[in-house]
């Protein structure tokens, strides 16, 4: 293709957007609305995902030892549990620390419950707080700790707790939230594509005459297709960049406005810089793709004049 032809196509693409004002406006609006809704849902999904991960990461295993375990057995057990591949962190909580933590948790008002207990008559066992790499592995790790304990003559482990029952429910809820997010985002993407290809089809039908005349004067198919391609790409890119900017700026405003109001929650909205890359990439790629694909597909249909 000659350079002058390429510039002609780009020029025509631009002109066509302006000349077909209402049609362009319809395409831009439908891409804008679809992407806007999509963007909001992407942000929601990202935040829900982050919250779910945060909740999941709080899941720990507590290993309660018997009160009369010998020091070398404790050390050996600690080593073996620490060597389980899925374990990311093992914290040894001595009797004294256990008592201190318990006092802390009971608070001032109930401190008299623990009155009289000191390091000499501490009734608490040694405990291990075990964290795992993948929260969903807590049950399997807990089982492994049980079987390690079983290798000793008398089991040094009194109990292994990870919130059995509650944890399973928690994972079901977080999974449901994630899946719902993916499904909504996927459904919205498809809706956006359909909405936009429909709008572009209308544009093309309106220009069927133009295409047939172009063919009549001896324009090649690629010559006919190019300006539509440029037009679709321009509409897609411009609209998606614009929409992305609006969504992210809006999100930033919300974060700033609710920074203090939401601080009582342990969970926080993700900062803009963390969601920016994924959100804008998804939206701009999708928007451009939709614009180009929509126009190319619709033109192809009418090229068989």
């Amino acid at each position, binding site marked *: 293709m000659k350079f002058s*032809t390429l510039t002609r196509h780009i020029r025509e693409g631009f002109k066509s957007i302006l000349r077909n004002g209402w049609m362009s406006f319809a395409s831009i609006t439908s891409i804008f609305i679809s992407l806007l809704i999509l963007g909001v849902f992407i942000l929601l999904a990202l935040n829900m995902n982050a919250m779910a991960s945060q909740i999941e990461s709080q899941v720990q295993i507590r290993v309660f030892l018997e009160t009369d375990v010998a020091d070398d057995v404790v050390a050996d057990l600690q080593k073996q549990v620490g060597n389980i591949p899925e374990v990311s962190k093992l914290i040894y909580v001595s009797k004294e620390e256990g008592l201190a933590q318990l006092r802390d948790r009971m608070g001032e008002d109930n401190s008299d419950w623990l009155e009289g207990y000191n390091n000499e008559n501490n009734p608490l066992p040694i405990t291990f707080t075990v964290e795992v790499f993948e929260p969903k592995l807590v049950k399997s790790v807990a089982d492994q700790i049980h079987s390690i304990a079983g290798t000793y003559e008398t089991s040094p482990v009194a109990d292994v707790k990870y919130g059995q029952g509650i944890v399973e429910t928690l994972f079901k809820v977080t999974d449901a939230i994630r899946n719902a997010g993916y499904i909504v985002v996927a459904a919205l993407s498809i809706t956006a594509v359909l909405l936009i290809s429909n709008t572009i089809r209308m544009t093309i039908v309106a220009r069927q005459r133009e295409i047939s*005349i172009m*063919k*009549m*004067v*001896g324009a090649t198919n690629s010559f006919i297709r190019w300006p539509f391609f440029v037009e679709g790409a321009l509409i897609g890119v411009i609209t998606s960049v614009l929409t992305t900017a609006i969504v992210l700026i809006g999100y930033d405003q919300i974060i700033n406005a609710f920074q203090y109001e939401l601080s009582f929650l342990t969970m926080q909205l993700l900062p803009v810089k963390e969601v920016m890359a994924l959100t804008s990439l998804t939206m701009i790629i999708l928007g451009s793709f939709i614009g180009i694909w929509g126009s190319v597909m619709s033109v192809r249909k009418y090229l068989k004049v």
Partner: protein
Amino acid sequence: MIEMHDIWKTYADGTSALNGVSVKIDRNEFVYLVGPSGAGKSTFMKLIYREEIPTKGEIFVNGFNIGKLKQRKIPYVRRNIGVIFQDFRLLPKLTIYENVAFAMEAIEAPRKVIKKRTMEVLELVGLKHKHKSFPSQLSGGEQQRVSIARAIVNNPAVIVADEPTGNLDPDTSLDIMNLLEEINFRGTTIVMATHNKEIVNSMRKRVIAIEHGNIVRDEQRGEYGYEI
């Protein structure tokens, strides 16, 4: 220039439009195609600019075997054929200048050449002063002039005109005919389907009459021959 050898055309719905037509039209001829509606005139013309292909038989235009043309070659053959319609078929959102220049852009002519040649043909059809107007601002006759300018801008060897005066009043029709005659005089072959008795009888040319898909009459300096 145009040669048809035993051309048959049957459409997908079973309508037979041409039944064994053979004809030879030489370079620089001016031919009227007459006959009742539905006789096969339009099909005859569509075969020339390869809107349709024959069911049987061979057709040569400017040396190309139109029926056997590869899909990607079609545009290049059409560049040598100018087509004029009864309803002008201008692009309403393009200016007069752009409507004509468009045909040159389609064949990727250099911009400078496009500008020069477009203004040249607009001058020839007498619409240079209106090159910035849009089709809706022009009269029917003027619009047909624009479509003629578009048809000739690439210097085609053949012009195919399907009832070019069908929508125009007698005076305007005469203007258009004078223009076509001028173009023919400059060396372009013209095939024109028409129902206009006055024109055919006053500007005597070769007349080919088609009825029921057959050529029933072919005379030099012929008459229209039908009562309206």
